[in-house]
């Protein structure tokens, strides 16, 4: 009953529509998609996007119910598919219907199948997994005796077909090349063309059959085969020279009007065919006089015949001109072609003008006089209101640039650049300007100014070759050394001026270029200027808008300039700032600078002035370490094994199943620490930094100690190599020297802590300013006195407690909080008590108490993750006890323990969460960190490692 009502309802609007259409000749206006009509009409009636969304969602859910209902007939399904396609076109997701589209193509009758195939071609993309389900249907339809089914199968194959399934249908399609119906042969050729595009190897063996298609008695089939030939000739023109005669003959016949009138388009014979043939001839005749001679006649005829004043004749003419200029030149033809170009350029129709400019651009290098002929038109086009015309004109000018006109042309290009917003245009134009500037620059000032504009406007989308080439050019210079120095000096001065401008943000790439140039060539300035340069670089380093990549460039520049500077206040400030940075890379740079800074001689020899073009001698075999290795071996150390060997041994030891993904086993081979250089430097740096941790580590962790030696050893002999003195210095002696130095440094550190100079205090105050935000919720309770706060005189037994909280503004490895308390003794003498507290990031870690469910949700939202395997000692092999240790020592919250897996959560105050997932197998603990902060997982991993391996 309800079915009938439904049918009636469906039919009503259809009948309505039928009456409206009046049943005229347009039989296509059938009522079959009336429900689509209803949908379309109700959408048009809506006023807001929100309403549309609601309506479509309703529609989609009703469609979802219908398509999955078992009672839905194929006919209804066809109707549903049409509506689904419509919804997808409006931008809504209808993926639930994809599988039904495939089913419809498979099971439906001809009409339903057609809609099913169409839906598949619209819904799916080439690598969609569902597409595999279509292969069988296609194979079946290709074998069908019904021509329409075969046509549909060929059409879908040419649109969308999984590459790896080509072999399944290839023989069937090859057979179709001999089919009696031309429409089938034509579609088969085009399907093979598609295969040639996506998988050329698979159709190589049927090249002979393509020749047969080229000679087919049906024009459509022959024309279809030209698509394949165009591709193949483009890839390898020499292989098809023998076909030139055939192509010429075909073109002659077409131009001579020998084809059926059916193929005429606005009384021009088969224009698409003509154009395709002209393009093929252009490829064949390129740089080949003999082949070109074969086509001169027909090209001449083509130029002559195309007289009708219609777009399509212009299309043919344009292609003809292109071909004439591509092949081996013949002056008579060139003359005619040039005349043709004139027709285009001078045409009042804007489309033709555009193509005229395009043609000029193409031929201008062969025939520069042509530009002179049309110079007035070109000038007019340069100020054309349509930016596309302007741009094509610039393209033309770019081809005729020389030393005399470069400044004007580049100026025009820059003007255009300033108006344009589209990334692709900017990248393209900026590349061209840079190229012209390098080739034709009239003087230094202009060159540097132009490149400044390139870097400023090009921003960070600029092709990386541009800054690289620019820097190479500066470094390598030209033949005249004095001139080169002037160029460099000009660059340095210009950058310093730019950096003085307030509130201007330069693109990162530009800043990188500046840092390199300033680092290398600031020595050309007055000696006193070096510190000023360093100050500027330092200011940039402290700015928030600088990416960490650029910071690395900046700190490298500072490092280069440090040996040239008289005073090193800023450098020391910088070292202090960044040796506690959470960014491992920056921290490493800062430590390198710090160590070099302590040894000026070494620093100067490592960073010689103006030697950027000279090759560094690097002892890649690390032969200077031989002595150290020998010593280690004699003391019973295991010989070094390359990574792959360790890997193999490990695999052969572990007979059991490998539960870890293969990628992970790489890092698990070194249980003791991260393999990354950053990790190593972190280990050694921390131990060298504070005497306390250093001691603890050497006593508890043997391998950490070895690492430390490696770091020092690798560092000292480098100096030997660089200075070029005796390289065979006795190693043991060096080690002792080094140890002494090390101790001295530590001592110095300690004494510095004890006797704080005023300067030191300032620095520390600066450091502590990072922890500002006193007085918020008592997250960290440090018992401190507020600076400059006077206590009232109290009885000895009376104590006063001030409680303040410290908040971290941005994550830092460690920092120092210091201050002083003023008090008065009984005899009213005022005294001062200084104090300082070292804070590490760990002090700001708190347990994060969440449920397992919340953990799961949070886990999925975080992008930054770090994984590492850690070997546990036997005593703590049980998961609960390990987690308990972590809970106690690092204040992580144990969320849940499930079998051999455990979940931990913590947060960096005020609210940066970090989640840990760990799993035990054998004595390995696989740790997996995720957080919203990119550096936090790294830090926590290091801490966890320390705790687990330390206990």
């Amino acid at each position, binding site marked *: 009953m309800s079915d009938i009502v439904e049918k009636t309802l469906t039919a009503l609007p259809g009948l309505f529509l039928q009456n409206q259409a009046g*049943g*005229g000749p*347009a*039989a*296509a*206006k*059938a*009522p*079959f*998609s009336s429900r*689509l*009509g209803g949908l*379309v009409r109700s959408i048009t009636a809506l006023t807001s996007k929100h309403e549309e969304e609601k309506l479509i969602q309703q529609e989609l859910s009703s469609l979802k119910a219908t398509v999955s209902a078992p009672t839905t007939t194929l006919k209804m399904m066809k109707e549903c598919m049409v509506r689904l396609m419509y919804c997808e*076109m*409006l*931008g809504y997701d209808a993926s639930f219907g994809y599988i039904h589209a495939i089913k419809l193509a498979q099971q439906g*009758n*001809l*009409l339903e199948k*057609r809609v099913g195939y*169409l839906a598949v071609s*619209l819904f799916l*993309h*080439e690598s969609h997994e569902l597409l595999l389900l279509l292969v069988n249907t296609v194979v079946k339809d290709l074998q069908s005796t019904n021509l*329409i089914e075969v046509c549909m199968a060929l*059409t879908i194959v*040419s*649109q969308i077909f999984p590459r790896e399934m080509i072999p399944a249908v290839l023989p069937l399609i090859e057979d179709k090349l001999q089919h009696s119906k031309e*429409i089938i042969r*034509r*579609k088969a050729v*085009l399907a093979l*063309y*598609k295969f040639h*595009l996506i998988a050329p190897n698979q159709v190589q063996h049927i090249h002979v059959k393509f020749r047969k298609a080229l000679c087919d008695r049906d024009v*459509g089939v022959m024309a*279809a085969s030209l698509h394949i030939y165009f591709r193949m000739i483009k890839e390898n023109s020499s292989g098809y020279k023998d076909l030139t005669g055939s192509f010429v003959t075909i073109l002659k016949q077409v131009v001579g009007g020998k084809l*059926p009138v*059916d*193929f005429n*388009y606005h009384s021009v014979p*088969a*224009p*698409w065919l003509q*154009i395709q043939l002209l393009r093929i001839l252009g490829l064949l005749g390129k740089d080949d006089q003999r082949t070109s001679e074969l086509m001169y006649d027909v090209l001449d005829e083509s130029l002559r015949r195309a007289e009708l004043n219609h*777009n*399509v004749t*212009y*299309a043919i003419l*344009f292609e003809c001109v292109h071909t004439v200029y591509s092949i081996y030149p013949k002056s008579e033809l060139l003359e005619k072609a040039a005349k043709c170009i004139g027709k285009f350029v001078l045409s009042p129709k*804007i*489309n033709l*003008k*555009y193509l005229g400019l395009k043609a000029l651009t193409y031929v201008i290098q062969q025939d520069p006089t042509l530009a002179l002929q049309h110079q007035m038109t070109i000038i007019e086009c340069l100020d054309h209101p*349509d930016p*596309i*015309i302007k741009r094509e004109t610039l393209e033309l000018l770019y081809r005729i640039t020389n030393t005399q006109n470069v400044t004007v042309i580049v100026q025009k290009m820059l003007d255009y650049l300033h108006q344009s917003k*589209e990334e*692709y*245009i900017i990248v393209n134009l900026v590349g061209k300007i840079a190229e012209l500037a390098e080739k034709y620059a009239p003087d230094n000032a202009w060159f540097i100014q132009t490149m400044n504009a390139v870097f400023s406007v090009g921003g960070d989308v600029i092709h990386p070759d541009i800054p690289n080439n620019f820097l190479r050019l500066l470094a390598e210079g030209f033949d005249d050394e004095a001139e080169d120095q002037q160029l460099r000096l000009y660059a340095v001065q210009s950058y310093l001026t730019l950096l003085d401008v307030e509130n201007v943000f330069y693109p990162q790439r530009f800043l990188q270029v500046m840092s390199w140039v300033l680092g290398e060539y600031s020595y050309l300035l007055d000696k006193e200027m070096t510190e000023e340069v360093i100050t500027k670089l330092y200011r940039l380093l402290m700015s928030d808008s600088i990416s960490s990549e650029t910071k690395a460039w900046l700190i490298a520049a500072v490092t280069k300039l440090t040996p040239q500077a008289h005073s090193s206040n800023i450098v020391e400030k910088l070292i202090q700032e960044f040796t506690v940075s959470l960014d491992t890379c920056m921290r490493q740079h800062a430590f390198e600078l710090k160590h070099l800074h302590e040894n000026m001689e070494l620093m100067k020899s490592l960073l010689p002035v103006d030697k950027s073009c000279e090759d560094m001698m690097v002892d890649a075999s690390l032969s200077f370490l031989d002595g150290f290795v020998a010593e280690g071996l004699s003391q019973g150390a295991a010989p070094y094994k390359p990574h792959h060997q360790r890997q193999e041994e490990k695999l052969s030891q572990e007979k059991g199943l490998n539960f870890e993904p293969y990628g992970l086993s790489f890092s698990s081979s070194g249980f003791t620490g991260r393999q990354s250089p950053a990790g190593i430097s972190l280990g050694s740096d921390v131990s060298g930094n504070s005497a306390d941790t250093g001691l603890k580590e050497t006593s508890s962790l043997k391998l950490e100690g070895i690492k430390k030696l490696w770091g020092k050893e690798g560092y000292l002999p480098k100096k030997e190599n660089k200075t070029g003195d005796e390289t065979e210095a006795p190693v043991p002696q060096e080690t002792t020297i080094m140890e002494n130095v090390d101790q001295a440094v530590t001592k110095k550190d300690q004494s510095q802590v004890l006797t704080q100079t005023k300067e030191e205090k300032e620095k520390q105050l600066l450091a502590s300013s990072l922890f500002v935000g006193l007085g918020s919720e008592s997250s960290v309770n440090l018992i401190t006195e507020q600076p400059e706060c006077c206590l009232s005189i109290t009885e000895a037994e009376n104590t006063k407690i001030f409680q303040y909280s410290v908040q971290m503004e941005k994550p830092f490895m460690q920092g120092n909080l210091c201050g002083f308390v003023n008090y008065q003794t009984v005899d009213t003498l005022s005294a001062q008590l200084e104090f300082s507290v070292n804070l590490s990031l760990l002090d700001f870690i708190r347990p994060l108490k969440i449920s397992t469910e919340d953990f799961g949700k949070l886990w999925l939202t975080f992008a930054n993750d770090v994984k590492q395997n850690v070997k546990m000692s036997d005593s703590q092999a049980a998961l609960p006890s390990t987690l308990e240790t972590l809970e106690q020592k690092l204040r992580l919250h144990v969320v849940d323990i499930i079998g051999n897996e455990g979940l931990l959560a913590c947060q960096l105050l005020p609210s940066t969460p970090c989640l840990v997932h760990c799993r035990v197998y054998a004595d390995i603990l696989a740790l997996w960190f995720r957080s919203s902060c990119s550096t936090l997982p790294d830090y926590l991993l290091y801490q966890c490692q320390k705790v687990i391996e330390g206990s």
Partner: protein
Amino acid sequence: MRFMLLFSRQGKLRLQKWYLATSDKERKKMVRELMQVVLARKPKMCSFLEWRDLKVVYKRYASLYFCCAIEGQDNELITLELIHRYVELLDKYFGSVCELDIIFNFEKAYFILDEFLMGGDVQDTSKKSVLKAIEQADLLQEEDESPRSVRDLGPQGL
């Protein structure tokens, strides 16, 4: 050809055909961007556009924009004629086509396009044979749905 789009002056997509594998997200982004660019152009401007690494050829017929993306070395003018031929085909099929015909029978518009272009290249430039192929399939449809329409279809058939 890389893709073909039909959209209205109000920026509503009416038909889209992609001849090169493109992800759904990328498609949406490209359609949105390109519509903006084309709709912002003034009537007297050139029908060709350089957009990203593509050449875009567009033409407006009444309230509908037809828009093709081709590669740099392809012939712009013939692409413009290709659009025109497609419009002619639609016109002949629907009998003086209008935007509404394409909205309400968009699947037919797709069928015609598939018969005219295959894999982005011209398959059949003969108007007669394209329409013949479509009508062959349609004939079955009319028989299936409403037999009286066969009469309207006239003598052309299989």
